[in-house]
C-alpha cells in the first residue's frame, strides 16, 4: 500500500498550559502534495516544528520515512532527506545569497547544481547580494531554492508563496508540480491561499483548534460532500440537524443549508420527507468545506 512519509498519531503539545495540539492525527502518503489548512493559531506551525525537532511533543508518536522520530539522532536522519521553508523566511543577515547557498549545499550530498542554476535564473537572484537587502519576496524565493535544490524526498513548507506575486506563484507551483511528477517528491505545505491549494494539492488536511477536522483526497472530498439547500413554508423542522450525514447546518429564515457527506441520496430522501417546498443539491468548494469546519457556528 501507500507508504506514509509522515505519520503522526495522538500528537499533543501545550504552551504554558494552553493546548496547541490535541491528539492530532496526520498521515501524508509518499508522492502526494498535501495542503495543510487552518486558521492562524490553529496549530500548523507547531505541527511543522514538531516534525522537525524544534519542539518536543507532550504526547503521541511521529514516524517519518517510516522511522520513529524519538531522539535527536533520528530527527537529524530525517532532516537529511527533507527541505524546510519557515513561515518568516529568516536567513542569515551576515551572508550573501551565494554564501547561503554554499553553506546549505555543504549539508546535502544530493544537492542538484542544475536546479540551483535553474532557480537562480528563474527567480533572478543575484549571487552577490546580501541577505538583509533582499525583499520578503526574494527571501521567499531563496528559501524555496534552498529547499528544492537539495534533492529532498519531502518538502515541508510554511506558507511557501507568501510575498510572491501571482506570476511568480504560478512559476513556483509549476516547479512543485514538476518535482512531484519527475522525482516523486512529496510536498506538505501550509497555506492561506485556498486557490493554490485547490490547484496543486491532491490531498488536504484541515486543522482547527489543534485537531484534524478533515483529512483526505481533495477530489474525493468534492465527490463525497454536497450542499443541500432546503426551503420550507415555515420554520425548518428541528429534525433536520439530527439526520445522518449532516456535518453542518445553517438556518436563515425559511431556508436551511446543510453540508452533507456520505450517502447523500438517502439524506435527500429523508429531507424530502420533511416536506420542503424546494430542494437543491449543489457541489461543495474547498472554501465552503474550510469555512464550515473552522468557523464553529
Amino acid at each position, binding site marked *: 500500500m501507500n507508504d506514509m512519509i509522515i505519520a503522526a498519531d495522538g500528537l499533543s503539545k501545550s504552551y504554558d498550559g494552553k493546548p496547541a495540539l490535541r491528539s492530532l492525527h496526520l498521515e501524508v502518503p509518499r508522492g502526494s502534495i498535501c495542503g495543510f489548512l487552518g486558521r492562524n493559531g490553529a496549530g500548523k506551525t507547531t505541527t511543522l516544528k514538531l516534525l522537525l525537532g524544534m519542539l518536543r511533543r507532550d504526547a503521541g508518536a511521529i514516524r517519518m520515512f517510516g522511522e520513529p522520530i524519538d531522539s535527536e539522532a533520528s530527527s537529524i536522519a530525517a532532516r*537529511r532527506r527533507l527541505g524546510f521553508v*519557515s513561515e518568516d523566511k529568516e536567513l542569515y543577515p551576515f*551572508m550573501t545569497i551565494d554564501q547561503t547557498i554554499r553553506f546549505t549545499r555543504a549539508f546535502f550530498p544530493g544537492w542538484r547544481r542544475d536546479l540551483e542554476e535553474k532557480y537562480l535564473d528563474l527567480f533572478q537572484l543575484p549571487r552577490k547580494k546580501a541577505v538583509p537587502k533582499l525583499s520578503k519576496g526574494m527571501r521567499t524565493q531563496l528559501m524555496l531554492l534552498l529547499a528544492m535544490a537539495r534533492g529532498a524526498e519531502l518538502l515541508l513548507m510554511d506558507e511557501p508563496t507568501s510575498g510572491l506575486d501571482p506570476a511568480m506563484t504560478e512559476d513556483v507551483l509549476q516547479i512543485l508540480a514538476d518535482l512531484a511528477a519527475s522525482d516523486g517528491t512529496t510536498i506538505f505545505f501550509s497555506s492561506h491561499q485556498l486557490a493554490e491549494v485547490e490547484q496543486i494539492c491532491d490531498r488536504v488536511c484541515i486543522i482547527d483548534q489543534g485537531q484534524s477536522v478533515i483529512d483526505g483526497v481533495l477530489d474525493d472530498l468534492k465527490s463525497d460532500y454536497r450542499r443541500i439547500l432546503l426551503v420550507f413554508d415555515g420554520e425548518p423542522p428541528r429534525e433536520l440537524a439530527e439526520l445522518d450525514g449532516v456535518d453542518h447546518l445553517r438556518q436563515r429564515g425559511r431556508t436551511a443549508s446543510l453540508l452533507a457527506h456520505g450517502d447523500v441520496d438517502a439524506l435527500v430522501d429523508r429531507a424530502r420527507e420533511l416536506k420542503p417546498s424546494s430542494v437543491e443539491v449543489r457541489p461543495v468548494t474547498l472554501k465552503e468545506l474550510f469555512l464550515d469546519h473552522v468557523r464553529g457556528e
Partner: protein
Amino acid sequence: MLWYKAWLETRWRFVFILGSILLVWVAPLWLPSTGVSAAVAASRMGRALQLESALLYIFAAIYLAGAGINTQTVYAATTGFHGSMLFTLSMPVSRRRLLLVRAGLGAILTGLLVAIVAGYTLLHQPGSASARAIVEYIARAIICTMAVYSLSVLMACVLDEMWQFMGGCCVWVAFFMLQSRFAVLSSLSPLRGMSLICYPLGGPMPWMTVLASLAFAGAFLCASALVLQRKEY
C-alpha cells in the same frame, strides 16, 4: 561550513574589539604631555595596562560569546521570535555540534586576543621577566578568560542576544564585588587569576585558581549544551 558561518557571524565583533583595544593603547600617546618624566610616565602606563588588560580580556570574552548561539537576528515585523535559528535547526546537524563549533571559534578568537594583549602588556612591564614567568602569565590569562567566556556562552544560550552582554557584565561586576568579601571566592577567582596586580609577574603561579577556572569553563560549557539540548524553538 559551520566554522565558516561562525567566522562570518563573529568577524565584525572581533575586528571591533581589536580596534577598541588598539585605540586604548594608542590613546595615551595623544594625551597632552603633563610635564612628567618619561620614567614615571612609563611606569604609570605599565600599571594602567595591567588593570586594563584584565578588563579587556573580560570584555572580549563576553562580547565574542554573544553572536549566533541562540537567537540570531530577527527581522522586524515578523511574528517569529527565534529568527534564523529556525533555519539552522532545520539542517541535519546536532545542537551539540552547533554549540561546539560556535563556542569553539569564539574561544579561539578570544584566546588570540588575550595573547595579543598579554604580549603588549608584558612589553610595558618594568624590569625583565624570565621566559617561564611569561609563559605562566599568558597561560593563566587565557585559562582564566576561558572561564569568563564559558559563562558568557551559557548566558547567550539562556538570554536574548541583547541581554547577553549586559547580563554578562552584571554577573562579573557582582562577582568582583563578592570576591573581596569572601575569601573562598577570592582564592578561586578567574578575575584575579588573569590579573598582574593580584599575582605579579615572576611570582608563584596560582594553581588553584587556574584549575578552578578550567573546571568552571568545562562546567559552564556542559551547562550550555544541556540548555540548548532542551530548548524549544
